C-alpha cells in the first residue's frame, strides 16, 4: 500500500531541500556578490559588505587587463574536443563491456576507475617530459588529449551503466536483420542511449571546463583556458578578492548557464538506473 504523504511532510522536505540547495549554491552566490564591490568593501565584515556601494569597477579592470575571449575560446575548444574524443573511444568500449563481457570485464572496469585514484601530481614530471618531446606544451591538442585520458574512465563507466539497461535482444534482432557491428552501434544502440550519452557528454564538458591542475601546468599563453584566467587574479601581497570574484564569475557563468538549461537532462542521466 502506498504511504500517504502529508502536506506537512511535503513542506518540511521541500524546505530542507531548499536549505541544502542554498548551502551548496552559497559560495557561488557570495563570489557573485563580492564581484560587485570595490576591493576595500570586499574585505569588510559580511553585513557591512552587503550594505556597501555596488560597482562594476572590478569587471572593468578585469576586462582591461585580460583577453577574456581568448581564454574562453580555449576552454570551449578543449572541453568540447576532449568530450567528443572521449565519446568516440568510450561508446565502442562500453558496448563491448556491456554486451560481450569477458571474464575480466569487471576487473578491467575497476582498474580503469582506479587510475582516477592516483594523485595527478605523481605523474606530472613524466607527462611534462612527454609533452615537451612531442611539442604539445601549451597547445590545445595536448590539452584535448590529456583531458580525454583523465575523464575517459568516468565516461566509460557511465555509458556502460546506461548500455546495461538496454535489452540485448534488441541488438540481436538488429543483427538478425543483417546489421553489422558499425550499424548496430551507430543506428540501433546510440539512438536508444541518447539520454545517457547526452548526460555523459554534459558531465564531461563540466569536468573538462573545471579541470584546474593539468590546464594550469601544461599551458602558458596560447592554449591557456579560463582556469588560468582565474589564477592570474590571486595575489600574495595586496587586496584581490573583488577582482578574483569578478574573474571567477566570468569564468563560471557559461558553464552555470549550460548546467541550468540542461539540468533535467543531467539529473535524469545521473540518476539513471539508481532506482529500479
Amino acid at each position: 500500500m502506498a504511504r500517504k504523504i502529508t502536506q506537512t511532510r511535503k513542506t518540511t522536505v521541500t524546505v530542507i531541500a531548499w536549505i541544502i540547495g542554498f548551502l551548496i549554491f552559497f559560495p557561488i552566490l557570495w563570489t557573485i556578490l563580492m564581484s560587485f564591490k570595490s576591493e576595500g568593501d570586499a574585505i569588510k565584515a559580511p553585513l557591512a559588505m552587503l550594505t556597501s556601494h555596488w560597482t562594476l569597477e572590478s569587471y572593468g579592470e578585469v576586462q582591461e587587463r585580460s583577453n577574456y575571449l581568448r581564454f574562453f575560446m580555449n576552454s570551449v575548444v578543449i572541453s568540447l574536443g576532449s568530450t567528443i574524443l572521449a565519446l568516440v573511444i568510450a561508446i565502442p568500449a562500453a558496448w563491448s563491456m556491456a554486451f560481450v563481457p569477458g571474464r575480466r570485464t569487471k576487473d578491467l572496469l575497476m582498474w580503469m576507475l582506479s587510475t582516477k585514484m592516483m594523485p595527478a601530481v605523481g605523474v606530472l614530471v613524466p607527462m611534462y617530459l612527454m609533452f615537451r618531446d612531442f611539442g604539445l606544451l601549451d597547445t590545445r591538442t595536448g590539452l584535448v588529449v590529456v583531458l580525454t585520458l583523465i575523464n575517459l574512465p568516468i565516461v566509460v563507466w557511465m555509458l556502460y551503466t546506461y548500455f546495461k539497461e538496454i535489452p540485448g535482444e534488441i541488438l540481436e534482432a538488429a543483427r538478425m536483420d543483417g546489421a553489422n557491428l558499425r550499424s548496430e552501434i551507430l543506428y540501433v544502440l546510440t539512438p536508444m542511449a541518447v539520454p545517457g550519452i547526452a548526460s555523459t557528454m554534459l558531465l564531461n564538458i563540466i569536468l573538462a571546463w573545471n579541470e584546474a591542475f593539468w590546464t594550469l601546468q601544461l599551458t602558458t599563453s596560447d592554449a591557456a583556458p579560463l582556469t588560468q584566467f582565474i589564477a592570474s587574479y590571486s595575489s600574495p601581497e595586496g587586496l584581490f578578492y573583488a577582482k578574483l570574484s569578478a574573474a571567477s564569475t566570468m569564468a563560471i557563468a557559461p558553464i552555470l548557464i549550460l548546467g541550468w538549461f540542461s539540468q533535467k537532462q543531467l539529473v535524469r542521466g545521473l540518476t539513471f538506473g539508481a532506482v529500479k
Partner: protein
Amino acid sequence: MNKTLRALFGATALLTLAGVAAAETTITVATVNNGDMIRMQGLMDDFYAKNPDIKVEWVTLEENVLRQKVTTDIATKGGQFDVLTIGTYEVPIWGKAGWLVGLNDLPAEWDKADLLPAIAGGLTVDGELYAAPFYGESSMVMYRKDLMEAAGLTMPEAPTWADIKAAAAAMTNKDAEQYGICLRGKAGWGENMAFLTAMSNSFGAKWFDENWNPQFDQQPWKDTLSFYLDLMNEYGPPGASNNGFNENLALFQQGHCGMWIDATVAASFVTGKDSTVADKVGFALAPDNGLGKRGNWLWAWSLAVPAGSAKVDAAKTFVAWATSKEYTALVASKEGWANVPPGTRTSLYANPDYQSVPFAKMTLDSINSADPTQPTVDPVPYVGVQFVAIPEFQGFATAVGQQFSAALAGTTSVDDALAAAQELTKTEMTKAGYIK
C-alpha cells in the same frame, strides 16, 4: 605602370612585411599578480617603442602555482618561459644548479654597481648575478600613531621586543575589536615561518648549527615561540592562526590592529586609498633584543632568464629595461614617486623626490639592516634571513609552520610543537644527506 611592375612592387611589399614579421621575437614572461608587476604591464608601450622587434607575452599566476609551474619547466628544460619572476629563495639554488643565465653582461648603462648591496648579495652566486631585482623588501613595524598617542607612548625608531609588548598591551581593547598587534599565523614557509624565522634571528636562534643539526631543542627557539604566542594570545586578533599577509592587511586597513610587523611593501597599501587609517600610520624598524640582529627579513622579486630559453638576448633586453633607472623614472612620471618599485637601487634613495615618500627611509634602513649571508647571532652554514637557501627547506619549513600554527590555535603546546619540529627537520635533513 604596367601589370608586371605593379605585381613586382606588391611582391616586394609583401616580402618586406613577411621579413618584419619573421624578425619579431616573442618572449614569454612568467610573473605574479603584484601591484608593481601589473603596473609594468600597463607601461609596455615604452618598451615596444624602444624595442619594436620584441613582443612580450605575459603569464600572470598565483605565487604558489607559478613557483610549481616554473620549477617543473626549468627542471625539465621545457623552455616555456624566457623570463621568470622569482624570489630571493630560488635564485641562489637555481643559479648554483646552472638553471639560470648569468646577468653580469647586462649593458654598462644598466649600472649594476647601483644595486643595493644587501639585495644584490642575495641574487649573486660566486660573483655572478643570476637575477635582476625588480623590487626589494624587508619587514618593519607599521603602527597607529593615534593609538600610541592616546596611550601616552612613543614608538622608538628602533624598538625592542619589550617595547612592542608594552605598546601592544596599551593599545589593546578587545571589546572595541581593537588588537594591539597583528602578526602572521597561517602555516607556510613563506607565511608564518618567514616571520618566525626572522624573529628568531633577533632572539639568537637559528635553524641549524654549523654541522646542519636542527636547533629547535635549544633555548633561543623556546624563547622565540613562547614570546610570539604570549604576544598573540594576549593582544592579537581571534583566529590569528589563519592570518597571512592579506588577512592582516585587511585587519590593519579597517583599523583593528595597533601594530603590524610585515613586509615593507605593505606601507603603500596601509597609506593608500583603501585604508581607513591611511593618515595615522607610523613606521619603525623591526624589533630586536639587543643581540645585534633585528627581526626583519630580506626579499626581492627579481627577473631571471632560464637556461632553457631560446631567446636569451631578447629576454636580457627586457630584463634590463624593466629593472633600469629609466623604468623607475617612467613609473614616477606616470604614477608618482610613491608607486615606483622600491628597494633595489641606491640612486632611488638619493633622489630628493623619493626621499619625501613617508616610508622611503624606513624601507631603506630595514633592507640595509638585513644580511642574508650572516643572518644569525651565531655563525651558520646557510644563506637567507627568513629562509634557508636549500631546496629541501620549502617542504620541512611548511611542516614546522603547521606545528607552530597549531600552537597558536591552542591545539598543541610550545614544547610539543618544538619537539615535533626538531624531529621532522632532523628526519628530512638526514634523508637529504646533510646529517651523516
